[in-house]
C-alpha cells in the first residue's frame, strides 16, 4: 500500500483522492505535496498574513481529508472545490481580524538574481500584495484567481458561484482599482509616464 504510484504527476487530483480514501498512504503524501502550496498561496494572496494563511490552509486541507470518502469523481475539480473553501475561510478570517498588518512576501531562492534585483522584486511583490489588500474581497478574489492563479473565467465563475459575465466585470473593475492603488508607487513598480 505504501508503494508510490507510478507517474504520480500524471494522476489527476480526484484519482489521488480516491486512492487516499481507499487507504493509500502514498496518495496522502502526494496530495499534501501537490495541494498545500496551492491552498496556502491562495490564502496568502487573499489575506496577506502568513500565520492566518497557514491556519486557513490547514483547515481547508482538513476538510478535504474529511470529505474524501464521499468525493464523487468527475463532478468537480478538487482545486475548484479547494479555492472555494479557502475563499470562504478567508472571508471568515477577514471578518474576525480585518485590520491586521500585512506580512512581507517571502522571496524564493534565486541564485541567478543579484541582491539588488531580489530587493527590487520583493519591493514590487510587497507593493502588489498591499494593493490587493485595498480591494473589496470579491474583486481581490477574482483578480487573484484570474491574474495570479491563472484560471479561466468559467472556472472562476464556478468557484465564486457567479456568471462568467459577472466574473469578467469583477475582474476588470478589480484590475482598474489595483492599477489606481499602485499608481502611487510607480517608481518601485516600473510604471512610466511617457
Amino acid at each position, binding site marked *: 500500500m505504501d508503494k508510490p504510484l507510478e507517474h504520480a504527476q500524471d494522476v489527476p487530483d480526484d484519482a489521488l483522492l480516491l486512492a*487516499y480514501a481507499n*487507504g493509500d498512504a502514498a496518495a496522502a503524501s502526494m496530495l*499534501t505535496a501537490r495541494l498545500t502550496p496551492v491552498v496556502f498561496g491562495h490564502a496568502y494572496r487573499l489575506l496577506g498574513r502568513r500565520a492566518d*494563511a497557514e491556519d486557513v490552509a490547514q483547515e481547508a*486541507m482538513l476538510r478535504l481529508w474529511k470529505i474524501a470518502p464521499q468525493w464523487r469523481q468527475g463532478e468537480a475539480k478538487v482545486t475548484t472545490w479547494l479555492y472555494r473553501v479557502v475563499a470562504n475561510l478567508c472571508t471568515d478570517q477577514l471578518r474576525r481580524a480585518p485590520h491586521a498588518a500585512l506580512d512581507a512576501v517571502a522571496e524564493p531562492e534565486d541564485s541567478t538574481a543579484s541582491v539588488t534585483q531580489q530587493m527590487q522584486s520583493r519591493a514590487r*511583490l510587497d507593493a502588489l500584495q498591499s494593493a490587493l489588500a485595498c480591494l473589496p474581497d470579491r474583486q481581490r478574489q477574482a483578480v487573484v484567481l484570474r491574474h495570479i492563479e491563472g484560471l479561466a473565467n468559467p472556472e472562476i465563475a464556478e468557484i465564486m458561484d457567479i456568471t462568467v459575465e459577472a466574473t469578467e466585470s469583477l475582474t476588470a473593475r478589480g484590475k482598474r482599482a489595483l*492599477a489606481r492603488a499602485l499608481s502611487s508607487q510607480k517608481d518601485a*513598480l516600473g510604471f512610466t509616464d511617457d
Partner: protein
Amino acid sequence: MTDHTSEETALGDLFAEAREAPVAPPAALMARIHEDAKRLQPAPPRLASKKPAPARWRDIWQGLGGWPAFSGLATATVAGIWLGVNPPVGMALAAETYLEYETITPVIDLVPESYFDFSAEAL
C-alpha cells in the same frame, strides 16, 4: 492612452512576476497537514479471508433449508399439538363422520360358474 497602456503592461509584468514567485508553504505546515492526512485517512479495505471449511452439521442444516425451514416446521408442530389437545368442534364431528362411515368393498367374481364362490369367501 500611452499612460494607460504602460500601466497595463507594468501590471501584467507584475502579475507574471507574482505567478513565478509562488508563496511557498513552510515545512512545518506541510508536516502538520500530512499528519492530519494520515490521522484522518480511512483504513484500507481488508481482503476477504479464506473461509474455513464448513462443519458437516452445517451442510446438513443448510440442506434442510436452514432457519426458514426450521421455523416453518416448528410452527406446524406446535399447531398440530394444539389441535390434538383442544380440537375445534367442527373437526371432531368431521372425524366421527369419516371414522364411522361404512366401508363398502366391491368384489367382482371373475369365475361365477366355478365351484368356489370367491365373492362370498372374500366377504
